[in-house]
């Protein structure tokens, strides 16, 4: 990993992938890093595949808002099927943080009469593909800690900050304020963020 950090956020529209990329972008701005993100907004926003690119330059300028396959230092996933779809972006030794949530697309459910779906295969694929241990986030745990599954993105953010050491907590809080707006959302996101951080820390101390 050089002085430019590439992050791919992979989600299903409506899950909060865009807020996650936005929070990282704002936090980067506050921290004085160079930042560029590339999003696909619009029709694909709701229940379609959403891919957000975030690029951070530490003491170095980033230009392109997007990057190519096998260039992601971090793959942050809010959904397992989308995570698998975008595995090709992960670079060797890149890190993956993935929520265990599965939202099968309609095309898959329509096929389900032919063969029963097997979702654990996605976890296996992720594990076999990634060279580093993956940090999995259990959405039910997030719901218990934060009161809503909508805060999964903040849990992923917590785990990401914990392993990347890119941001101070107060910077993240400021970016949550700017991006999320409502007090309620900030509060649940803050709790989920702490959960994500501790999950990642436990992982690291075990390793």
């Amino acid at each position, binding site marked *: 990993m050089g002085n430019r950090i590439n992050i791919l956020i992979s989600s299903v529209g409506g899950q909060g992938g865009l807020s996650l990329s936005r929070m990282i972008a704002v936090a980067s701005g506050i921290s004085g890093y160079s930042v560029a993100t*590339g*999003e696909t907004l619009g029709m694909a926003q*709701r229940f379609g595949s959403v891919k957000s690119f975030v690029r951070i330059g530490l003491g170095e300028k980033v230009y392109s808002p997007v990057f190519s396959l096998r260039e992601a230092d971090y793959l942050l996933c809010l959904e397992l099927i989308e995570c698998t779809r975008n595995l090709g972006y992960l670079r060797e030794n890149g890190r993956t943080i993935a929520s265990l949530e599965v939202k099968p697309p309609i095309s898959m459910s329509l096929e389900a009469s032919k063969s029963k*779906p097997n979702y654990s295969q996605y976890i296996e694929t992720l594990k076999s593909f990634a060279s580093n241990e993956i940090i999995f986030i259990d959405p039910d745990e997030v719901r218990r800690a934060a009161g809503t599954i909508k805060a999964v993105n903040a849990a992923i953010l917590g785990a990401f900050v914990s392993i990347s050491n890119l941001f101070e907590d107060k910077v993240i809080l400021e970016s949550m304020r700017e991006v999320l707006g409502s007090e309620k959302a900030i509060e649940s996101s803050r709790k989920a963020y702490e959960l994500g951080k501790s999950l990642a820390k436990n992982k690291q101390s075990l390793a």
Partner: protein
Amino acid sequence: MELNPLKMSKGIRVALMGNEAIARGALEAGVALAVGYPGTPSSEVIETLQRYGSEIYAEWAVNEKVALEIGIGASIGGARSLVTMKGPGLNIASDPLLSAAYSGVDGGLLILVADDPGPITTQTEQDSRWYGPLAKLPIISPSNSQEAKDFTVKGIELSERLQLPIILRTTTRVNHSIGEVILGDRKIPKRYQKFEKNPERFVRAGMSWNFERHKWLDSRLKETEKISEDLFLNSLEGDGRKCIVTEGIGYQYVKESVSMENRDIRIIKLGLVFPPPLNFLARSLEGCNEVLVVEELDPFLELTIRSYAKELNLLNVKIKGKIDGFLPLEGELSPEIVRSFIFGKKEEDVMKTELHVPSRPPPLCPGCPHRNSYLAILTGISKAGFKRKDVPIFGDIGCYALSVYPPLSAIWTEHSMGASISMAIGMKLSGFDKPVIATIGDSTFFHTGIPPLIEAVNKRVDMLVVILDNSVIAMTGHQATPSWSETETGRKTKEIKIEDVVRGIGVDELRIIDPYNLDEMASAVAELLKKKGVNVLIARAPCAIYEQRRKGRPGYYTVKEDLCTGCLACIRATGCPALYVTENGKVRIIEDDCYGCGLCAKYCPTDAIVRGD
């Protein structure tokens, strides 16, 4: 602390999306009026301005042509204005665009047109730079958020100096990327100054006046490079003999590649893409032994450079770009494509995962009333005794076009705004003897659906028109329609009722129905299909997502696992994305996503789907 980037003061550095930066630029340029029609990727400009406050007018217009004419009207009175739209929107507004070039403007007029290489959300990959030579108007093209803001300010300035409207042309990767922006000072909005009667200039009925104005336009256009010189729209970096000419997002890909490779390469970046800044190009291209042109979509700059090869002293220099097939004509560029174009490297094959990952085209949302409407239409066709394959459903532009995907597989066409009704007319008039159905959303109907309905009624063409009225422009992010009584900014409006318009046109029969009453709507479709004349059904129910955001959802449903037989009737009928099949072959509802419309429950033979609350 001030969190609204439009209100922050000068000198502050913030991360802004390209469209937010354009909105900020509008304030720094002293724009008094911003108007547009929503269209991805342009919509966030007006949306951002609407959150600013009432100092400037920032509202949606009924369509792009009207929006541009509003901008022109303001600008000939000396006010500064910004008009926004996506690429296809400019096709609709092209008529006033060409005339505006002849009359010119007094207050700055900047027209944002956002193209969509990829395409990511647009019906065509049109390259709107061609409107430069077509309308004979200057085009400027920013490459990141900072320039998006700065070029908005410069564009207004250039417009006033040249007395011409200026096109600010962007692409999705500029509009929807976030990057750092250093803010400048806001100016007091420049409102109406004066408007003097001047028919030679403003009336296009006098042919000799038009001829004179054409000459005037050509002379102004010729001045563009000189007059824009101190705005520093173009830039030159490096001094190698391998030269790259680029613009827009292409520039960022070039910079990324060159900074990684650290090689001596000359980068000539155009901010003014039309008319070509020939003096700048001649200066910058001196001594080059190879010229690579990096641009998305059409070889617009490449053709320019090739056609001026003699003037630019490039007759013996190889010019590479799209014409010889080095770069693709379709789709987006990427850092990778640009890198291998410049350095001739082939990227290694990408590791593939073993697993087949199913595609995820965007579905209609859970609880979407359009799902009910199309199910009712399909059921109605059968009820009327027709086969589904015999009755074409003409579609239009909006979320409801997503009904094309299985399991509904409903619409047969989706073409251009308002085309559902007109194309149905054409089919009938050419001798098609079965019934036809046109389906069109409420805002698309207001936008360009009214003239074709007039045509259908006037020419006595038999058809069923279903207006899918969810009372909002949903696909582009829920903007106001003329049926609202108050806009996003709190401006009180006179609401326009679709039924009044339809009745006024004189259709044979009009019914208004709630599509959640599926059976009732299916019967209505069946009846109206068999009737002669132009019959209109307004299927009215609010957009589920929008309603949920404002009022919360009506409830949710859940599946009783022991009752579910795994027949999948629910999924096959509705295709609702809140439903999925678990590993044991039974269906589950993602309760957080369910809207509680109850549609799936109607199709379950074992009553396994019940209310969860």
